[in-house]
């Protein structure tokens, strides 16, 4: 068996389209997910049960079920309420696999990000909050200037993993016919039968982008923690724990 490199080199433009689609889905759902997760995480740490309980339920549902079920629930499940969606004028959105994929990826990553942010908000030292209160900061000013900046820095290592895994999880949207990188690969496999060559090629692309993202985030982490590192030539006082690799696969 000789490798069929034509299945790769003859369709480079299609793979590129696939990569762009994958990156687009990742970027939009990461941005929308983060925008959702910040208020949700603040609600999650509230002391009022009426505020934190619904958020807890949302996070529990989306973290406890497979992403594939969530995609199917939104894409195929909306069909069961078609007349309702039509009367609400939303059917043009929900019949599109692109919209449904974005919606489920966003809701999924928002749930994981909420949980990450909850942990890091609760890790903000209480003394800093007390000090801000003593200075007469209002609640929102305190959240904006003290809690969130600190929480984002704490959250970064775990959030990096989350973004990389979301990027990988976008490969599931090919199941609802979207032409992301893996969708392109599946179509080309069924046409050229060069399954091995295409899968390995696509795997290498996913791997390269994953690690490029990982190192990009590590660089940001490094930049944001300059004041925490020892000056050159001076021994470090405290060792900052390295982020633990955790599977956050859906």
């Amino acid at each position, binding site marked *: 068996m000789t490798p069929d490199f034509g299945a790769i080199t003859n369709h480079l433009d299609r793979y590129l389209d696939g990569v762009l689609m994958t990156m687009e889905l990742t970027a939009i759902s990461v941005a929308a997910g983060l925008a959702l997760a910040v208020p949700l995480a603040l609600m999650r740490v509230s002391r009022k049960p009426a505020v934190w309980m619904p958020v807890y339920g949302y996070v529990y549902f989306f973290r406890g079920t497979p992403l594939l079920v969530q995609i199917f629930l939104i894409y195929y499940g909306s069909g069961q309420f078609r007349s309702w969606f039509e009367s609400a004028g939303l059917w043009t959105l929900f019949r599109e696999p692109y919209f449904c994929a974005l919606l489920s990826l966003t809701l999924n990553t928002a749930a994981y990000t909420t949980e990450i942010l909850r942990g890091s908000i609760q890790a903000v030292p209480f003394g800093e909050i007390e000090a801000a209160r003593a200075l007469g900061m209002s609640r929102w000013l305190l959240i904006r200037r003290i809690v969130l900046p600190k929480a984002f820095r704490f959250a970064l290592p775990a959030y990096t993993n989350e973004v990389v895994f979301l990027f990988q999880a976008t490969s599931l949207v090919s199941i609802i016919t979207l032409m992301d990188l893996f969708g392109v690969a599946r179509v080309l496999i069924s046409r050229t039968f060069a399954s091995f060559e295409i899968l390995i090629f696509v795997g290498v692309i*996913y791997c390269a982008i994953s690690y490029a993202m990982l190192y990009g985030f590590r660089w940001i982490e490094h930049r944001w923690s300059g004041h925490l590192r020892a000056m050159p030539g001076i021994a470090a006082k405290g060792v900052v724990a390295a982020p633990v690799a955790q*599977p*956050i696969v859906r």
Partner: protein
Amino acid sequence: MDAAETFYRGYGWFFWEGLKITILVAVCAGAVAVPMGLLGAWGKLSRSPLARTVANAYTVVVRGVPELVLIILVYYGLTILMQMFASWLAGSEILIDIDPFLTGVIALGSIYGAFATEVFRGAYLAVPTGQIEAAKATGMNRSLIVRRVLLPQMWRFALPGLGNVWLVLIKATALMSVIQLDELMRKTDIAARAVREPFKFYLTAALIYLGITFVSMLAQQRAEGWANRGVRRS
């Protein structure tokens, strides 16, 4: 029971059938992942550069490639390898269908073996070196140290991480529907298409997955309590 069958238009038992396969494939994949993880951790901590390179390459590749791509790769890969092997044995072209269950177990087992590798590596490093030195000083040989000092304590440190891997593994079994394994997701899919009430069926499947997660977390708490029974708590 009859009410449930009416509610699901006679397809209620599909969930049960699918659930059985889902749990079976997850348990078998877990049984593959644990030894692979131990082996991977041994490789990562080994003094031999070859073992370290192989183990590192294994975790780097698995963490970098989406599991859906890996599953399909194992599926096609196994099929072609078996085909070549059978054709070589028989001396003529033979077409064989590979069992999706076997593929699923191998694919998921080796994917989550990489995550278990990290867990076991961390657990090994968490055992104080003084204890290993003490064991050597009392004249224990290597296998005895592993059996009596390392493994009993590694379980304790590894359990939270392994529980996490198990929860992720359970959810990843849903991807097996792509290679036509009759697990919960595929059974639900078939029923939902037949009855044309997709939302009801997928929501039920989602709740079943939540139920598995819930039970697993309870079991994990019990196991951690058992593993930590000899530890003084502050």
